């Protein structure tokens, strides 16, 4: 138990922090707070990836870390802040399910994720394998956030945070995907956010609000 090197302890700490940020996002009522948390999540992810890159000699992970930092800590939060300011949507919004209940569901999801990850991480040879459970938990929590939010921007942030979790899973289980794939994924995410930006303006123009409750016309009768 004491054999863990110091940098790995830091990685573990960052992993725990990621999980904590995921929960904080679940409980955050303001959009701006959500964006800030998302930026912090990206930062924790980038730092932990860089540490893993440095200690394992997987130098391509440096690129991923830089990519994460550039996209998810600087570019996207900046874009979201601008969007929120422009559209003036930073109000307190109660989620669909009240927050303590969401938290309890979140804890159950974490337990589920840890159990799911256990057999996989036992097979893994990476030094960071134990964080796989946290990665899966982050994915599930982001998923939960997407379900419980009724506003457009929080849903998108949930989606991106899910991507963060997946990225972390890739780092902890296999030291990341091949670089080409990672670049492709990053490109897709970037284009996705761009498309969504356009889209959010369209929604705003048409509905005069970003509340997705207006968008419940298409249902099975």
């Amino acid at each position, binding site marked *: 138990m004491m054999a863990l090197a110091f940098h790995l302890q830091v990685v573990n*700490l960052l992993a725990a922090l990621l999980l904590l940020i995921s929960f904080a996002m679940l409980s955050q009522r303001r959009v701006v707070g959500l964006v800030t948390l998302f930026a912090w999540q990206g930062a924790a992810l980038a730092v932990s990836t860089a540490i893993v890159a440095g200690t394992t000699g997987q130098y391509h992970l440096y690129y991923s870390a830089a990519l994460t930092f550039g996209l998810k800590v600087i570019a996207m939060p900046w874009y979201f802040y601008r969007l929120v300011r422009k559209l003036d949507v930073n109000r307190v919004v109660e989620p669909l399910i009240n927050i303590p209940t969401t938290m309890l569901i979140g804890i159950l999801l974490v337990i589920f994720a840890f159990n799911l990850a256990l057999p996989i991480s036992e097979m893994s040879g990476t030094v960071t394998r134990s964080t796989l459970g946290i990665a899966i938990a982050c994915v599930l929590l982001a998923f939960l956030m997407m379900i419980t939010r009724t506003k457009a921007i929080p849903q998108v942030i949930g989606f991106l945070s899910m991507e963060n979790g997946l990225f972390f899973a890739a780092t902890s289980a296999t030291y990341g995907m091949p670089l080409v794939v990672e670049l492709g994924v990053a490109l897709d995410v970037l284009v996705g956010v761009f498309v969504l930006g356009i889209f959010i303006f369209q929604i705003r123009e048409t509905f005069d609000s970003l509340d997705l409750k207006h968008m419940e016309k298409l249902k099975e009768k």
Partner: protein
Amino acid sequence: MSTGILLQAAQTLLAILLAPLLMGWVNQCRAWLQGRSAPSIVQPYRALRKLFHKDAVLAHDASPLFRFAPYMVFASMALAAGIVPTLANDLPFSPAADVIALVGIFALARVFLALAAMDIGTAFGTLGARREMLVSFLAEPALLMVFFTASLISQSTALPVIVATLAHKAFAIHPSLAFAAVAFWMISLAENARIPVDNPTTHLELTMIHEAMVLEYSARHLALIEWATAVKLFTYSALGIALFVPWGIAAQGDVAALPLALAAMVAKLAAGGAALSLLEAVSAKVRLFRVPEFLGTAFLLAVLGMLIHFLLEA
């Protein structure tokens, strides 16, 4: 053995006697932070002395329970102060209760206080008791979770073992312990009726919790309760220190280390009190219906700490 008993007595007495000083220190810091001229640090002692000299007034309908409760509350707190290691570890009293029983001792005091509050049948007393029970019902499981996390690391629920394990091993980052520490901090705020859960200085009927319960007490009864409150704060602080930053505590029978332990403890308590007052100065009291959320977060953090322990540190 005899040094042990001596030390035990000294530690318990010290805790009980120093407790109002800690209270005074917190109040002083807070006054500074709020830009007021601060009351003297020994102000709580003066208040206690004044109360002890007054004549007690009892309500007509008060049952013996009402009179008995302050002694019970004070005794429970004194016992707790004796169990939690502050100066030296593994004293003769320590085996009396492990962390779970410690939670029970706190609960005992609370039950008596709540019963006494309802005893005289005023609206405020009942209201306060009800709110107190709401808070504790949420805080207790969270507190237990914190203790579980700490005891998972040291494989024991006995306080001396936990403290010894954490104090004497090589430095390692325990994310789980960090989570537990934050959770413990939040629970302490709630349990000690501090901002943001309760405001110890207000008697505003809409918001008060603890003060509503003791509204009917006067003189020596009130003094005992106030003192017990101070001891409780002291015990919680000592407990937090013992669990999360135990460095410097004297091992069993190590008399030579005592001066250092005393200095370390005073420094840590002073820092903790300052941090507490800072927190109270910058944050606002949350509305009562948000308290479950606050404590829910504490519970969540504690559970997360435990889960993370299983995942990362097991």
